[in-house]
């Protein structure tokens, strides 16, 4: 049977994704020679829907291997799902998810990785994501 040809076009809406990766550059707080002790990462974002999204967050210090951040227990938008730090959907409202580091992290620079990940029956819906800003909180230790 011959194929059909249809016309397609880009949508006015953002895509519903199953795969997405976002890796920042290595941020050094303005001075790459200074060692910093990182304590917190705030991510301001919005996303359609409710519940736990498939978007997870990792970090690495000075180009080392990727590690998971840890949701701040008092923050409602950073959650742990299947042992992975995920973002809560926000019903398209701009919210801030707060993450902490699983251990004391010291280094000159830090990079973040946001990516989609689902395990088992987790909801893979990921629609209308908008990232507004990322904020690192750190304390300068010394100059080496």
């Amino acid at each position, binding site marked *: 049977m011959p194929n059909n040809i249809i016309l397609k076009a880009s949508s*006015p809406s953002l895509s519903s994704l199953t795969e997405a*990766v976002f890796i920042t550059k290595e941020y050094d707080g303005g001075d790459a020679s200074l060692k910093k002790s990182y304590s917190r990462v705030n991510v301001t974002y919005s996303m359609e829907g409710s519940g736990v999204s498939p978007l997870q967050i990792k970090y690495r210090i000075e180009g080392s291997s990727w590690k998971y951040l840890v949701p701040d227990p008092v923050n*409602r938008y950073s959650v742990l799902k299947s042992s992975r730090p995920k973002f809560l959907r926000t019903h398209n409202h701009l919210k801030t998810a707060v993450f902490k580091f699983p251990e004391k992290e010291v280094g000159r620079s830090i990079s973040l990785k946001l990516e989609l990940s689902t395990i088992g029956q987790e909801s893979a819906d990921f629609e209308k994501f908008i990232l507004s800003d990322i904020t690192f909180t750190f304390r300068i230790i010394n100059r080496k």
Partner: protein
Amino acid sequence: MPKQQQSIRDFSGGIADGVNTKDLKENQLVECKNFIADGIGRLSTVPGTREASAVGVVSELPEGNAKNIHGWTADLAFEYTGQESGNNIEAPTITEVQVAKRASIDFWHSTSYLMALNPFVKSLVIHNIDRDHPVLTWLVEANSYKNTYDNLDLNPPSAYDQSWAKGRSVKALEVLANQHTINPVYPENAIPWKWKTVSSSNKVSHAPSEMTNATQENNDGLTDSAVGANLNGNRFVVEKVSDNATWGSNSTTHPVWKMTLEFDYWGKINYSIEGTWGIPRENGIYYGYRPNTSNPSIVATHGVSHRSIDLNSSNPTTSNFNSRNGATFIVNNGIHEHTDVYGAYSKFSLNMVNISYYKTHKYTLNIQVYKDVEQTTFDTINLEYRNDLGEQVDDVFQGLLGGGENRIIHSGYSQDQAIYWERHDGGVYLFQNSDTEKPYGIKQVTIARTQEVNASSSLSDGERYQHLVAIANKSAQASVYSMETDNWLPWSIDLREDTSVTTDNKGISFFDVEGYLTASCMAFKTNNIPQWFGYLDINKTYCLATMTPSTDFFSTKFSPTPYKQIVTTGLTANQNSTNDSASAVITNSHQAVDWFSAEAVWSGVTGWISGAANSFKNLDDDDNNKIRVLRHSKSYIGSESFGLRVFCQFFDDQNAGTNGTVAGVPMIGTFKKDNPVHFYYSYIYEGGYVSQPIRISCGVGATANQEGFPSSFAPKSDSVSMGINVVIGKQLIGGDGNNNILNLRLKGVEIWAKYTKSDPSNLYLITEIDLNKGYRSNLDRNWKSLSNYYFGSSSVQSGYSTGDFTASSSDKYKTDYLIFSEPNLIESFRNRYGLDYQDNIGFDQGGTGWKTACVFNRKAFYGNIRIVGKDGKIEYKPDAILKSAPSMYGTVGISTMIEATINDGDEIVSLQVVGNKLMQFKKYSLTIMGIKQLENGETSEIIEQVIHHSGVLSESQICKTPYGLFWVSRSGIYIYNGQSITKLSETKNGNLMSKKDWETFYGERTMCGYDAYWNHVIIPRTNLNNNKTFIYSFNTGAFTTTTEQINGLKTSGFIQTRTGHVMYAQEIAEAGSSITKSQSNTSDHSAGATNSTINQNNTQ
């Protein structure tokens, strides 16, 4: 050191794979797949895709990397009844997508309820995430509930006892409920709520009427002043539920106690459950409470029935929830995830895919919206809109619903109940959402479409256009889609001469100008010949046939040859022994000529009245100006029966007529008997094509269908004038006199003369006839009406003439002639068309055509061509460009060829125009040409720049943007703004994409397309099973990647929708809902089908 913060809001730098990660700018990214930064502080997911056509067409795209799609607009008076058969302009309908549900939270407590154990103070907080405030806060102190009902222990001594329960437990729950009721903590934006009271019909837990004795009353505490009489105003909130199926088999002895928190809100509320009362699951996920176990890790599972909720595995009685010791379950609508919602916003769908192109309607939308939480009263919104012709379905939605931010603004209802709308593929959704302050639900929506006005017969010129899309199919055919009507037109384009041949082709090159489309086989297959496609009004002023339909789409050969019908009966004067005999006349022949020995013999000639005067005279009836009617021996020879007749009359005879009229007076001129004149004719076609001039011939050939003898005319004596009269007959445009038009594109005729002694290499224009305007010549350049053709008859003959030869007089006037006193040398064929008249014109044979074309300076340019050369053989010129005459876009020939760069082992891939520059893309180079104004007023293209290593492999690798011409090349990504070229894929810091990645990315099938809506260019790696696409954002000047665009089967290149979205054709595997061309040629397309068939068969 104090804590510091570093905030990053700018992700607009995109990826920079070719730059060391440590050297990235602050706003650049190491990887950005399926995200796109389209501004500072805004990184979002890539746009989605949607189906832009309601139905597909059953076919396949050609193999290869050609663009195979072309969008253009066409002016047309269009009554396209076929639109309605596509079922996409039916009357709008309403569908209720979601019934409003009131937000609430259910609390279920087991009979063995026991709340307060260590720690002695338990807390439970329900938090509204959307509005960021607590909904409910409960605190239970164990120490203060030591006796009887104090500790909320519903566990009876043995079996269930109602009075015990009432006294010890229900009262406790009511007291607990009052923690909120008595002390609500609401911020201003909080959504009010209350405990839902239960009625007697719902087995009220302990209504006053049930209290049969003082003990019970006392146990219930209803009269206990310590906790306050009239709890909840004697309206109780705890309901006993005995439901074996849901909660457990022994629900009679162990009922479940239910409380419902009910919001004044008909919609979703996202909330979290927090506090120490219960099991703090992952980040506060909280389903139930079972305090007396050391392993509070078992939670409700999504989808598991209530009775199986295992909150206390140590319960000795049963494993069901109702018998659990101390179980509380908080649930919303049975979905066991704390951020799921109980409650839903009203949502309706107004279903309308498209609107009629030629009908207008009044649309009336009525919305009833509840204005109180109990849904007893409502407001009514009445919205009306009458669409105008030319509007799209989105215009109707905007007109009806309007408002900023997609909110319906209307005086008929309060904005507390604001209703919003959102577009979807099949119409719009109407709904309340979290932005609605007090959503109480939409009661009803109705839509009416009335007052239809069919404007198909009254469309004005300004309304006559549509956006069309041509898609190349396999086997050298193309389908055409109308954006306005959202339908595939029933008229297709077929390049094949033998339509039984179904071999694949490597794509079709499309090109449009002035609303007409042309198509050429890019493989130059012999069976394929370029086609012309357009919408025409074929009823002409000077047309003797009524065409049905008079307007339609037509597809014909791009370069037609005039129809010729060779006369096969009769004898020429030359063949007849009696040259001057009237019998030397060929019936229905084409032209009349004046031969030097002619006499006034008209008897027997069609249209001639026997015995009438055989002289011509001036209108002033001055006998001295009469001239002799000359014998038209060797006459009436032509290529078309009753088509074109050219009467040439040299005013040279001074003899008296045979019927006794006065002698004529020769008109003085410069025509000489040794400078014979040859006449040629060419046809002018809609879309800018002139046929190669054909010499008017005399007589028939020796055998049937053989060309006659070439004509040659000269005066009998020197120094006389020449008169020309031209007649066009039915055959010219009417074929056999019925509706079968020989060529629907025909718009006129040109008559040319060659003066064989004085200028034998040129043709000069004698006169031109326009089937609407009339005729004109260089004698005065004014258009004049053609006359009815009598030719001496009392009745109108089948034709129009440049002179009337009226029936009112038997005399023939020389004013009926265009009289040239000297050879007309004002405008030659070469001057007018830039061509040698002996050249083949256009792409008039199978296997000819082009691979790319554009319009520049009102001339068409064809690149990489195959055309008939000087020697009559087809030549392939991959480096050549053919330039047309101004506004004559199909009029090209081998003598108008330009070769900017030749013999470089390359070939032209694309011709593009940027401002006043013509850009010639080859595979490995780019040549930029400018315009040079010549002294004679003509223009010439000059090479300004040749740039190597910046070519493209297909036309799909180029797209036009508001910022200039954008293209992808093996060496990178470029843009040209008319003045300079910028390499976008490279910065001072390095390449934005690694060279290695780009080498593996770029190939023959790489494409690019501009999306004006999103203001970015998408660059898929391939048009078949694509798995990676770069996106270049003009907002940020940055690249990102996506895997979500242009996936799947074969795709075409890109064009834009009317709203600027990038658009493309794609194969889908399943047949699905579709139309076929054969299907569409039936039913409502009866008229079109007839003509479609005609068009396919009459390609002359």
